[in-house]
C-alpha cells in the first residue's frame, strides 16, 4: 500500500487505491476483532522469526488487544473514507507526501496492539511515532509546522526512552523480554513503582497528560484533517492501551497509590485541557486541547479501576474500566467526527480561525447537522454516547466511599467535582465552537461564500455520527462485548452482581443501585416534542413574520460591521473566572482619547503555565549543562587520555562490584 502511495505523486487517481485499500484492510481487521470479542476473546499467538537473531517477534491478540484493534481500525475506515475526498479537494503539489505514510501509520498502531514482547512493542511504537511525525511534516512549508514537528519529535523520543527504561526495569530480574515472562515474574516493589512512573511518563506523553501535553495541540492540527482525526482520536488511545497493558496486566497486583497518582493527574489534565480549549481560536487546536481533556477523563477512570482492583472490589473495578473503555470508543468516534468537520470547514472556507467563520449552518447544512451531533456527544448530553461514558464514570466515583483509605475517600470526592467541572466547561467550549462557526452571521467573505463539501467526505462523517447516537441509546451490547477484556484485566464484569439484565437497559453493579435508559429517553423526547409541535401549530398559531434583527444600529453587507459575539468574547467570563489565576490572563483596553478617530482595541494576553513553570526551566537547565560540557571539546590530548583511563577504571570497578 505504501509502495502504491509513493507512485501516487505522479498519478492523482492512485489516492483512491491507497485509501480504498486501507479502508478494506481496516474493515477486515475490525471485523476480525469484533468476531474474536463476540466469541469470548480467546488469545491468538504467533511467533515470527524476525527481529534480533536470538529473540523472535512475539505477537498475541487477546481480548484487550481486540477492543483496541476495533477502535483503531474503525477509526481507520472512516478516516480513509474522509481522506479520499479530502485529498481530492486539497491537491497541493508542494505538500509533502501523505499517501505512503498513511497506511504505515495505521499499520504501526496495529502492530503496537498485537506486540507480545518489549522489543516488538517498542519498535512498533517508534514506527507509529515516526510515521505520524512524517505526516505532521507534510505541510512543511509553514514555519509553525516545523516547530510543531520538532517539538513532537523531542517528546516522542522522550516517551519512547521512558518506555524503554520501564521495560528494561521490569525484565532485569530474569532477562526475558517477552510479555509472558514479565507477567510470570512479579517485579519487586521498587521496580514496580519506578515502572509505573516511567510508563505514566512514556505513555502519558503520547496520550497528552498535563504537563506532557505541550506538543499535542501543535502537532495534531498541523497534519491533514483526516490524519489529525487519527492522531487525536486513535493514536492517543494506543497510549491508553499501553497504560492498561502494563498497569493492569504485566505488573500483577497493583498498589493503591498508583491509582491515586493517576486520578490526580487525570483530574488536572481534564480541567486544564478544557480551559486551554476554551481559550483557542483555531478550530483544530481547540479540538486537540479537548482531546487532552478527554484523555484526562479516561486516565481518571483507569486510576479508579486500579484503586478498586487494589482494594479487592473487582466488580466496581470492572465498572470503572468499562467506563474507561467506553470513553475510549466514544472519544475515538466523536473526536474523529469533529476533526472531519474541521476539515470540511477548512475545505469550504480555507480558514481554521473561529473569528473568521459564522453562519455556516445555512451554507453547509449537512456538515452543520453532523457537527451538532458531534458537539452534543462530546458535551456529554443524553441520550448520546458521551453521556453514557460520563454516567458510568460517575457511578464508579460514587462508589468511592467504599474504599478503605481516607485520603482516597476525600480525594475521589474532589476528583468527582473536577470531572463535573470539566464536563460543564466542555459544554461551554462546544457551545462556543458551534455557535461561532456554524451559527450567527458570517464574520468574513470566505465564510459567506462557503459551499457544502463532497460526498465521500460527508459519508466519512455520517458513519461516526450515526454510531454516536446508536451507542448512546444502546450501550449495553457494546459493554458486554468488552466483558472478556474486563475479566482478563480485573477478573470480573460490571454486570456480575445483578441478576436481571435486559439488553436495552444499563444497570451495572448493585452496590449503588441505579439505572439509565437512553432509548426510552430518546423515544419519549421525540414523541413529546412531535405532539407539542402538532398541538401548538394546530391549536394556537403557526404564523411567521420575517424581519431584520436589531443589531444596535450596525447592519451592512460588510461582514465585519456587525456587533455579534466572537469566540474570544464568548469565553471572556470564563477567562475571567478561571483564566486570571491559571493562565494570568489579562484583558487590556486601549481606549483612544476623545476626539481621536482611531478605533478602540481590546487585547487579551495569557501565558501557558506548562511552558513557564516546567519547560522553560528545563530548556534553561539543558543550555546551562551544554555550556559546562562545552569545555570538554577544547582539551589537550593528555587530558583526553586521562579521562578515558578514568572511565575504564570506573567501569571495571562497577563490573567487579556487580559480578560479585
Amino acid at each position, binding site marked *: 500500500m505504501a509502495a502504491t502511495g509513493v507512485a501516487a505523486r505522479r498519478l492523482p487517481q492512485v489516492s483512491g487505491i491507497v485509501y480504498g485499500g486501507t479502508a478494506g484492510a481496516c474493515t477486515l481487521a475490525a471485523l476480525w476483532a469484533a468476531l474474536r470479542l463476540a466469541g469470548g476473546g480467546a488469545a491468538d499467538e504467533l511467533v515470527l522469526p524476525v527481529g534480533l537473531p536470538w529473540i523472535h517477534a512475539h505477537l498475541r491478540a487477546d481480548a484487550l488487544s481486540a477492543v483496541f484493534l476495533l477502535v483503531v481500525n474503525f477509526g481507520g475506515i472512516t478516516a480513509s473514507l474522509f481522506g479520499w475526498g479530502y485529498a481530492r479537494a486539497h491537491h497541493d503539489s508542494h505538500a509533502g507526501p501523505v499517501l505512503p505514510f498513511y497506511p504505515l501509520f495505521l499499520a504501526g498502531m496495529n502492530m503496537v496492539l498485537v506486540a507480545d514482547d518489549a522489543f516488538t512493542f517498542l519498535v512498533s511504537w517508534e514506527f507509529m511515532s515516526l510515521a505520524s511525525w512524517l505526516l505532521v511534516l507534510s505541510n512543511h512549508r509553514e514555519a509553525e509546522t516545523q516547530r510543531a514537528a520538532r517539538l513532537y519529535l523531542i517528546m516522542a523520543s522522550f516517551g519512547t526512552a521512558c518506555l524503554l527504561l520501564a521495560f528494561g526495569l521490569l525484565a532485569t530480574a530474569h532477562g526475558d523480554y517477552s510479555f509472558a515472562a514479565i507477567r510470570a515474574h512479579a517485579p519487586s516493589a521498587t521496580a514496580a513503582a519506578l515502572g509505573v512512573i516511567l510508563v505514566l511518563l512514556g505513555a502519558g506523553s503520547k496520550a497528552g497528560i498535563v504537563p506532557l501535553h505541550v506538543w499535542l495541540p501543535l502537532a495534531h492540527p498541523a497534519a491533514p484533517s483526516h490524519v489529525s482525526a487519527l492522531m487525536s482520536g486513535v493514536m492517543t488511545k494506543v497510549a491508553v492501551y499501553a497504560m492498561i497493558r502494563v498497569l493492569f496486566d504485566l505488573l500483577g497486583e497493583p498498589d493503591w497509590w498508583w491509582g491515586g497518582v493517576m486520578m490526580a493527574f487525570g483530574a488536572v489534565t481534564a480541567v486544564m485541557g478544557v480551559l486551554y480549549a476554551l481559550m483557542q481560536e483555531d478550530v483544530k487546536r481547540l479540538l486537540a486541547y479537548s482531546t487532552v481533556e478527554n484523555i484526562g477523563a479516561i486516565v481518571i477512570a483507569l486510576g479508579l479501576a486500579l484503586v478498586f482492583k487494589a482494594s479487592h472490589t473487582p466488580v466496581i473495578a470492572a465498572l470503572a474500566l468499562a467506563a474507561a473503555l467506553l470513553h475510549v470508543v466514544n472519544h475515538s468516534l466523536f473526536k474523529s467526527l469533529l476533526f472531519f468537520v474541521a476539515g470540511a470547514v477548512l475545505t469550504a472556507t480555507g480558514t481554521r480561525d473561529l473569528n473568521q467563520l459564522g453562519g455556516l449552518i445555512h451554507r453547509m447544512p449537512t456538515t452543520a447537522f453532523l457537527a451538532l451531533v458531534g458537539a452534543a456527544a462530546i458535551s456529554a448530553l443524553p441520550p448520546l454516547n458521551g453521556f453514557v461514558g460520563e454516567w458510568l464514570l460517575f457511578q464508579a466515583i460514587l462508589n468511592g466511599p467504599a474504599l478503605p483509605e481516607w485520603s482516597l475517600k476525600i480525594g475521589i470526592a474532589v476528583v*468527582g467535582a473536577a470531572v463535573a467541572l470539566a464536563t460543564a466547561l466542555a459544554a461551554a467550549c462546544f457551545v462556543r465552537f458551534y455557535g461561532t462557526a456554524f451559527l450567527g452571521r458570517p464574520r468574513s467573505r470566505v465564510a459567506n461564500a462557503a459551499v457544502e463539501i463532497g460526498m465521500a467526505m460527508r459519508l466519512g462523517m455520517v458513519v461516526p455520527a450515526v454510531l454516536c447516537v446508536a451507542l448512546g441509546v444502546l450501550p449495553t451490547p457494546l459493554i458486554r462485548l468488552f466483558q472478556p477484556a474486563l475479566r482478563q484485566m480485573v477478573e470480573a464484569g460490571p454486570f456480575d452482581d445483578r441478576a436481571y439484565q435486559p439488553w436495552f437497559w444499563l444497570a451495572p453493579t448493585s452496590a449503588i443501585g441505579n439505572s439509565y435508559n437512553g432509548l426510552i429517553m430518546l423515544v419519549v423526547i421525540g414523541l413529546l416534542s412531535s405532539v407539542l409541535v402538532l398541538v401548538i401549530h394546530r391549536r394556537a398559531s403557526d404564523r411567521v413574520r420575517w424581519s431584520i434583527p436589531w*443589531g444596535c444600529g450596525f447592519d451592512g453587507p460588510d461582514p465585519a460591521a456587525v456587533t455579534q459575539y466572537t469566540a474570544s468574547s464568548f469565553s471572556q467570563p470564563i477567562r475571567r473566572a478561571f483564566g486570571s489565576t491559571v493562565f494570568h490572563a489579562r484583558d487590556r483596553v486601549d481606549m483612544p482619547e476623545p476626539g481621536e478617530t482611531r478605533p478602540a482595541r481590546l487585547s487579551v494576553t495569557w501565558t501557558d503555565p506548562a511552558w513557564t513553570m516546567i519547560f522553560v526551566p528545563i530548556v534553561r537547565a539543558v543550555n546551562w549543562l551544554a555550556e559546562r560540557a562545552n569545555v570538554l571539546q577544547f582539551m589537550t590530548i593528555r587530558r583526553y587520555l586521562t579521562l578515558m583511563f578514568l572511565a575504564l577504571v570506573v567501569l571495571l570497578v562497577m563490573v567487579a562490584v556487580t559480578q560479585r
Partner: protein
Amino acid sequence: MTMLLATLYQIVQMLLVLALAPLLTGWVRLVKARLVGRRGPSPVQPYRDLLRLLRKEVVLARNASWLFRAVPYLMFTAIWLAAGLVPIFTTQLALAPTADLIALIALLGSARFFLALAGMDIGTSFGGIGSSREMMIAALAEPAMLMVVFSVSILVRTTSLAEIADFMMSGVVGLRISLALALIALIMVAIAENARIPIDNPATHLELTMVHEAMVLEYSGRHLALVEAASMLKMLLYMGLIACIFVPWGMATASAGVGQGIVAALWGMVAFALKLAVGGALLALFETSIAKMRVFRVGEFLGGALLLSLLGAIFLYVSRGV
C-alpha cells in the same frame, strides 16, 4: 396492575407539573409584590400571558436557522421530561428507572446547551452575552450540584430519586449537619440555575445585567411561550427535587391495595401543593431581602456552594466513621 398504575401516575404527574408550574410562578410574583407593598397581579396571570403569547405570530430574524426554530420545542420537552422524572407525589413512577439524578442533571444540561446555541443563532450581541454568561454560571453550578449528589449518595447508597425518597421517609437518617449543608448548597445551585436574584433578575430588562433574558431576547410568540413555560417548569422541578430529597414526607410509596394507593397518591398531591406554597413564599421572601450581585461575584457564590457540599461529604465520612 402495578405497572398500569405506575403508568397512570406518570401521565398524571406529567400533566400536573404542566398545570402547576405557571401557578407557582404567579404565586411567587404575588408574594413578592405583597412583600414590597404592591397589590400585585392575580396568581393566574402567567396562564393568561402564556395563552396570549401562544396566539400571537412569531417574528423571526431573516437569518434564523432551523435550529433556532427547533430549540424551543426540544428544550421544553427535555425540561418537561425531567420534571416528570422527579417524584413529587408518589415514588411509583413508570419512568423512574430511566434516569437517575445524574441523568436528570444532564437532561437539564442538554436543554441549556441548546438554548445557549439558539442565543447565538441570530448574531446579535445580546444573545451572545446571555449564552456566554449562562454557560459560565452552569460551569460553576454543575460541580456543586454533583457534590450534593455525592454527599446524599454516601448516605443513601443510590442516586435513583425514588429510592432516595423512600430511604429518607423510612426515618433511619435523622437530623444531620451534613444534610443541612447539602440542602443549603442545593438551594444555592437552584437559585443560580433558575436565574433568580441574586444571580440574575427574572424581571429585568436592563441589557447589561441580563443573563437568561438576554439569551432569549430574539424569541417571540409561541416560541417565547415555550421558553417561558420551560423556565416555570424548571423552577417547579427544582422545588420538587429539594422536596423529594430533603422533605419527602406525605409522598405515596409502594402499597398493597390499589384503592389505598390512589388515596395515598391524592394525599401526596395535597402535601406537594403545600410544600410548593411554602417554598414559593420562602423564595419570594429571600428575593425581596437581597440585592442582585455583579456577574463576576457569581463565582464566589457558587464556589461557596461547592465548598459547603464538599464539607457536607467530609462530615458524613467523619460522623459515620466509614
